[in-house]
């Protein structure tokens, strides 16, 4: 059958290459710096075609078997190391691929004027975005641990340049380095686990040339201690990516210094690799260890929920605030994953998508707002009373905000309530208590969203901001699909749930199949 995913991965790469080469064309048409050149339109076209391909992939995907990995390709890559190029997606993977593919053109469009008229910068920016897209699609469909790891790390490089090279904030370089160091640190720890995994797999009689395929590895019995160690290795990497308290420190800096577009790709898509990895690698590969660690993970997740929300309330910088809200939401996602209930897991999978839409919308709209300010200030205090001057902007912001506080009728509500209701009945010790502890998060969410809206859009217009232009057509085009998506999925969640239910059932079944040795609870305290 047609290798949809391979095509989806290859196409943006081609795009990046073409955009890079468009430099040659520009030289003939005009001097550097003059005009805006071909880069942006080219990139936009490529990303839109990619969306078209995505539609094809959706049509080809058999929702009846959403828990099976489909549309894939498997080919030997480095037989000596035993890794193969194996890509395939189940429902969850497909949704996340869709998220990446859909967000990219919007980000490109949103950043249309961001890099000014510097042709070179522009070309590099869009090329990097396309490159990142390819990596993101690939990482969400990798079915080979080694391949996953490779992409997991390689992804960081374009992201790093996007933050450090094109950011707005003064601290962007520091932020970029911080981001890379945190991610690489986690990644390298994961590398040790990956190697060990391979070694154990082979010594357990898995064919060395296939010893990285997830499907092969799930069968392997690793032995309690080794399994737990490896789980920790993987989990640390994913927790940093997710990001989870206390390894979240890189996120607010990035959010505050990168361009909104970058933040969108980074926090709304790239970070999903963390939760996605927990769901599709940690659980199936280390079921016993997952259950052993679950109480601890749940606790951290709930702490993240409240911590992120409180920090968001205390922020004075709009974009940092949005960043913090993500910490809170990722907490919910992880809570849903590690309570091992079909409902909660499905909710988390769904939430990965919704958070992308909602937070993406919030980031981009916030970006539009900031771009209107004379000094491009990101300080919330710099704005006031804009509802009367820019009603549409205000409305869009409010909808995005309400989505962030997961208002019923918007997709985020469905997922969040699924997580909460599901997690409450979770099997790990203390699920119910911790879930109840997470519920105040919804109040805090209301506070940080409405407080921000109140400060920025209500009251008397601030001096110098009386005559800001309202959302332009381009910007409306960016916001519309996200808002529409949130509304549609809010009224008809089944559209997405048909993709996530079966995988959720499956992963929960996989985890709950094994049983935890009695000492698990005892070790919990000491080991962590």
């Amino acid at each position, binding site marked *: 059958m047609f290798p949809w995913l391979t095509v989806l991965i290859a196409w943006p790469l081609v795009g990046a290459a073409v955009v890079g080469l468009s430099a040659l064309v520009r030289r003939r048409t005009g001097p550097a710096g003059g005009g805006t050149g071909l880069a942006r339109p080219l990139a936009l076209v490529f990303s839109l075609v990619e969306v078209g391909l995505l539609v094809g992939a959706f049509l080809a995907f058999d929702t009846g078997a959403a828990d099976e990995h489909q549309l894939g390709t498997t080919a030997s890559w480095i037989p*000596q190391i035993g890794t193969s190029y194996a890509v395939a997606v189940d429902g969850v993977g497909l949704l996340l691929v869709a998220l990446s593919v859909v967000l990219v053109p919007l980000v490109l469009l949103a950043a249309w004027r961001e890099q000014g008229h510097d042709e070179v910068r522009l070309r590099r920016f869009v090329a990097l975005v396309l490159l990142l897209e390819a990596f993101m699609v690939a990482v969400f469909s990798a079915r080979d641990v080694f391949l996953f790891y*490779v992409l997991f790390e390689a992804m960081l490089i374009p992201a790093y340049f996007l933050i450090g090279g094109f950011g707005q904030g003064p601290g962007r*370089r520091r932020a970029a*380095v911080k981001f*890379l160091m945190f991610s690489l640190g986690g990644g390298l720890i994961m590398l*040790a686990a990956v190697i*060990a995994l391979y070694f154990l797999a082979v010594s357990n009689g898995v064919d060395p040339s296939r010893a990285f395929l997830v499907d092969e590895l799930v069968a392997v019995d690793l032995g309690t201690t080794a399994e737990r160690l490896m789980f920790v290795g993987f989990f640390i990497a994913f927790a940093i990516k997710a990001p989870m308290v206390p390894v979240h420190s890189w996120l607010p800096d990035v959010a505050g210094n990168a361009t909104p577009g970058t933040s969108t790709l980074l926090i709304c898509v790239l970070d999903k690799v963390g939760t996605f990895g927990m769901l599709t690698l940690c659980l199936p590969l280390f079921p016993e260890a997952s259950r052993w660690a679950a109480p601890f993970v749940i606790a951290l997740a709930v702490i993240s929920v409240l911590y992120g929300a409180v920090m968001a309330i205390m922020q004075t910088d709009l974009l940092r605030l949005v960043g913090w809200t993500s910490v809170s939401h990722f907490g919910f996602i992880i809570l849903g994953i590690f309570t091992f209930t079909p409902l909660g897991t499905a909710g988390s999978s769904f939430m990965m998508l919704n958070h992308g839409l909602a937070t993406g919308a919030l980031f981009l709209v916030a970006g539009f707002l900031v771009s209107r300010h004379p000094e491009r200030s990101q300080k919330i205090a710099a704005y006031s009373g804009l509802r009367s001057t820019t009603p549409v902007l205000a409305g869009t912001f409010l909808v995005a905000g309400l989505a962030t506080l997961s208002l019923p009728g918007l997709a985020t509500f469905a997922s969040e309530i699924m997580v909460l209701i599901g997690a409450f009945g979770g099997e790990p010790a203390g699920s119910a208590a911790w879930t109840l502890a997470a519920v105040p998060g919804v109040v805090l969410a209301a506070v940080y969203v409405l407080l921000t809206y109140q400060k920025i859009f209500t009251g008397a217009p601030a001096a110098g901001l009386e005559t800001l232009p309202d959302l332009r057509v381009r910007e409306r085009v960016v916001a519309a699909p996200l808002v529409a998506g949130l509304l549609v999925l809010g009224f008809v969640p089944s559209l997405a749930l048909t993709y996530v239910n079966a995988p959720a059932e499956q992963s929960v079944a996989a985890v709950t199949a094994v049983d935890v040795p009695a000492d698990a609870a005892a070790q919990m305290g000491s080991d962590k």
Partner: protein
Amino acid sequence: MTTFVPPEIDWLALAPLIVVLGAGVVGILVEAFVPARARRTTQIVLALAALAGGLAFVAVLWPQIVAQPVQVVGGSVTLTPFALAAQGIVAVLAFLGVLVVADRTSTGQDAFAPTASAVPGTSYEDLARRAGLVQTEIYPLLLFATGGMMLFASTDDLVVMFIALEVLSLPLYVLCATARRRRLLSQEAAAKYFLLGAFASALFIFGVALIYGFAGTVRLLQIAQQVQGGMLPLEGMSVLLVAGVLLVTVGLLFKVGAVPFHAWTPDVYTGAPTPITGFMAACTKAAAVVALVQVLYRTSIGVQAVDPQILRQLQVVIVVVAIATMVVGAVVGSVQSDVKRLLAYSSIAHAGFLLVGIAGFNAQVQASTLFYLLAYGLSTVGAFAVVTLVRERRVASGSRSGEDNGPVADDGVVLGEATEIAQWAGLGRKAPWLTAAFGIFLLSMAGIPLTAGFVAKFGAFSGAVTGGLWWLAVLGVLASIVTVAFYLRLLVVMVFRRADDETVPEQVPDAEDLDASETAGASGGTAPAALATAQVTAAQRVVVTVARSRGPAAVAVAVCAVATVILGVFPSPVLDLVEQASKFVP
């Protein structure tokens, strides 16, 4: 009536060595008979041809050796696939290194002093420079060194190894002293390298003596056979063996640049002419590591029979050294402010990672070691090649050149390399392609996926894990996080930071345009700092510029960069080769 029985010598097996070393000899004759103006070209062609020829012979020999390793002249040269692969790698890296050496860049000057024997700053030196003398002896010297390395990697006889060690070292000592600029540093580097090298080789040969004393032979495989045969020459004297092996190992670790025998590395790498540094860093390490692996594993075969404890001691030694090496290399590297020095410490750290793999003491690590050496060598040669091109240029402060990150106009005097990390700011704007290449090398050294470095590091660490030392692998991982940090710092400076060319870099005396360096010579290390400030008067300022390569260096950089990426994405073919090569016991 005794008849002369000519020894059976498999000349084909020796061909790579003969070609390279022979070319060296021919090079000497060239010096004697070829007219001066044609000399340089001849030497370059000769050297490249020799290395290419050597490589060709390696290729020719490959299938045969893989099928059946041979011992030539009774083991003086033991040509196993492993050794042959090492010869090939050394030849390749040397080839690239020579390309860099040969490049005179847009300034029309190569990196070597017109007459290294001249005292810096003397009229004699000026004379030599004006006469346009060039020291073409460096090419034969390079060939000898290369030949030495190839032999070093492919012998089983410890004394031959000792000789090879000297054959590769002595030319390097000389080459280190021949830098065109910053000659004080150059000479100092040579002196340090020589004294410490001699010390190390003394340790080595004494170890050989002890082993000889124990076994009555200096051929490791022979020892192994004897011991396995159950015939121990000296009962109860295994202390000789232990001490001997220890000292020999130390001698090799010195060449590898492992802590605590690393101290020479940063100084020598900094002082030596940059092209030589690249050559040295890549090739010497390759040869030394291969030799180390062979010695360790061959002794381990024998030693096990004598007393397993000794083997464990050996492993402990390697583990300890590996840890120390990684830590020191990574940690000290992170506080360096000079590019060459930073790369030096990074090479120390890499020695540590290599040792992590070796410490696993399981045979399959040979393959990954070879791959690691190739990957590391490529990025190192490339990186130093880039360093040779990034120069300081002294211009009148009136001149606008070098400002606003634009490419520098061709005015003012091109000085030596700008090796202060701070000076590399804004390089991304001045020379995007060069920066991109350098970035690839850094990422490869950092072991980022999709570069050769990652596959290499993966192999090394899995070697340790397979050997049961998973905790050592974890340590390695942590160390490489630190190294990533400092590669990243360099990357940030080059790509993100804007150049502020107004800053005058603190630099050491530069014989090229220095009349006062005589006093510098007289007063040793104290004056240079003062000189550095004196050098750039108020009327002048130093901007950083990128010298255009005349071709060779550019080719080398390009080849290294492309190879690094290809080896990162599609390493399978090469991995196949090194897998075949993982056999060092005939």
